[in-house]
């Protein structure tokens, strides 16, 4: 019953094109394993991991709007060393594990990649150069030449597929995407959050302790969809669409725009982890209704 949702993504075999986005429940190895085993989960992504631990910003780190969230977590993470130990004890994954990571310099990026990729549980890497609220990260992500350099350095040391997670905060997104692809990236994740703030009119103060945060959720969707569409026009490597997916129709739209898979974040706060099931079912029924036999058949279809 329904269409098989399996996709091949930069060499990874996914049961469904639905991926857990980075930073969403991705700190605990055990929980990641648990989620990776849910039938409708195609892959899971870790929180972005750095060379050293980071506490992130003091609270408040998130603001809720009727049409999305603004988060300013500040990349809290236990650092590579602890995280690998966490993975050691986590058990075996039911679907591919994509390890998200970051670094403040090309060297640090390469070193972090090498360490994380060495873990057998890690199927692929995702380079986060697009976090809008930690300085030193997104500055790299808006410079095509720096991203290219980082990608080729990482690819020289690491055999596993590498995705680059792009920032929607720059007019150069397609240039960055192209530079990453030409430097050897295996795929792109589009997009991270849009830089935003929230102000409390009663206190006359910014709400988030980091002041700036990243907008996710439905408000981001039309922007993220544009980014995927734009990149698909110019770049050949596969794209993981991300931003505001809340229903199976959003999933369909991202795939039609050119995404080979789709990552879910904010929606999980509202619908819970079982949203994977709902979206998989909706997508499968959609494909059946359209008489399509695989997800791949409709990737980028809106460009034709």
């Amino acid at each position: 019953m329904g269409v098989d949702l399996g996709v091949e993504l930069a060499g990874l075999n996914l049961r469904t094109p639905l991926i857990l986005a980075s930073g969403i429940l991705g700190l605990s190895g055990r929980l990641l394993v648990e989620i990776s085993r849910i039938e409708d989960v195609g892959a899971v992504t870790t929180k972005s991991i750095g060379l050293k631990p980071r506490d992130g910003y003091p609270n408040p780190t998130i603001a809720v709007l009727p049409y999305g969230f603004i988060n300013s977590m500040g990349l809290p993470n236990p650092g590579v060393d602890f995280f690998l130990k966490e993975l050691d004890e986590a058990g075996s994954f039911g679907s591919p594990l994509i390890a998200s990571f970051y670094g403040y310099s090309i060297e640090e990026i390469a070193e972090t990649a090498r360490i994380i990729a060495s873990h057998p549980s890690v199927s692929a890497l995702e380079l986060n150069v697009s976090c809008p609220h930690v300085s030193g990260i997104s500055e790299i992500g808006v410079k095509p030449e720096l991203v290219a350099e980082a990608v080729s350095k990482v690819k020289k040391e690491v055999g596993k597929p590498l995705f680059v997670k792009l920032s929607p905060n720059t007019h150069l997104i397609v240039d960055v995407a192209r530079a990453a692809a030409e430097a050897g990236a295996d795929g792109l994740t589009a997009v991270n959050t849009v830089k935003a703030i929230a102000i409390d009119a009663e206190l006359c103060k910014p709400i988030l302790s980091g002041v700036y945060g990243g907008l996710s959720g439905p408000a981001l969707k039309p922007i993220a969809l544009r980014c995927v569409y734009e990149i698909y026009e110019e770049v050949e490597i596969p794209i993981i669409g991300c931003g505001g997916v809340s229903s199976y129709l959003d999933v369909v739209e991202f795939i039609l725009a050119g995404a080979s898979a789709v990552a879910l974040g904010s929606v999980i706060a509202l619908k819970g982890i079982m949203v994977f099931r709902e979206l998989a079912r909706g997508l499968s029924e959609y494909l059946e209704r359209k008489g399509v036999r695989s997800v791949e058949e409709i990737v980028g279809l809106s460009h034709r």
Partner: protein
Amino acid sequence: MWRRLSVYPIDEEFLEKHRRRVTSIARRVDECIDTVSLYVPDRLSIDSTPGQFLMVWIPGVDEIPLSISYADGGMVGVTVRGIGEATRRLCSFQPGDRIGIRGPLGRGFTVRKGRSLIVGGGIGVAPLRYLVYRLLDIDAEVYVVFGFSDKLHTIFVEEMERLSSGKLIEFHIATEDGSYGFKGTAYDIASSIIREGFDMVYVCGPEALIRKILLLCVEWGIPMEASIEGYMKCGMGICGSCVRGVYRVCRDGPVFDRDKLMEMEEIGLRRRGASGIMEPLI
């Protein structure tokens, strides 16, 4: 109609709970040398369950989880012990000072009729005080055991003694140095009366206490729930900061039952800090 259109899961309750409500402190009560109860008017907390918590924003400082220790007549109260920057600042707040609140969040205790044993240690008595009243509302049989380090750090003791002398609850108190009540810990008392048979044991306090009661209840086969802590950031179940075992304290908890607490394998032993690194609890 809106739902159909937006294809976004507009959970009005979720949205309203998580919008920070900036409000002025209406009443302040000093509970002991380092602990203060603060009361603010709040409509949403009317429907709270004991064990649920608020994210309390101390502007310019931090936003921290605090259990609801009182909710009635449009007022919600929290009881906070000054142990660090945020909690000390909060303890210095006076009526009129403004805080922001989100909540009530998480899953609270199962409020059920029967013979209930409530075991609290230190500031852990905060949610239990609210629980006592809700259990009395449904005419449950309530045994309360509170333990503190010493007389100077006792909280809600007068209040419980009043309920006790009114025959509404049976109340036991222990201090480690014996400066008030029984000399020993809440565990000592609880473990001695637990064999009397209870339908439910509720616990909150230091994790060492929770762990010991947990093992005891497993041994005796008694249903048990405890409110535990995790490092809270988003408070809405997406950031993963508060996860213990495979559960989110902010969303699946902070109250968990015996089986889940056992499954976590870490209660009383270790917990993640702000960065996500697992830290030993002793």
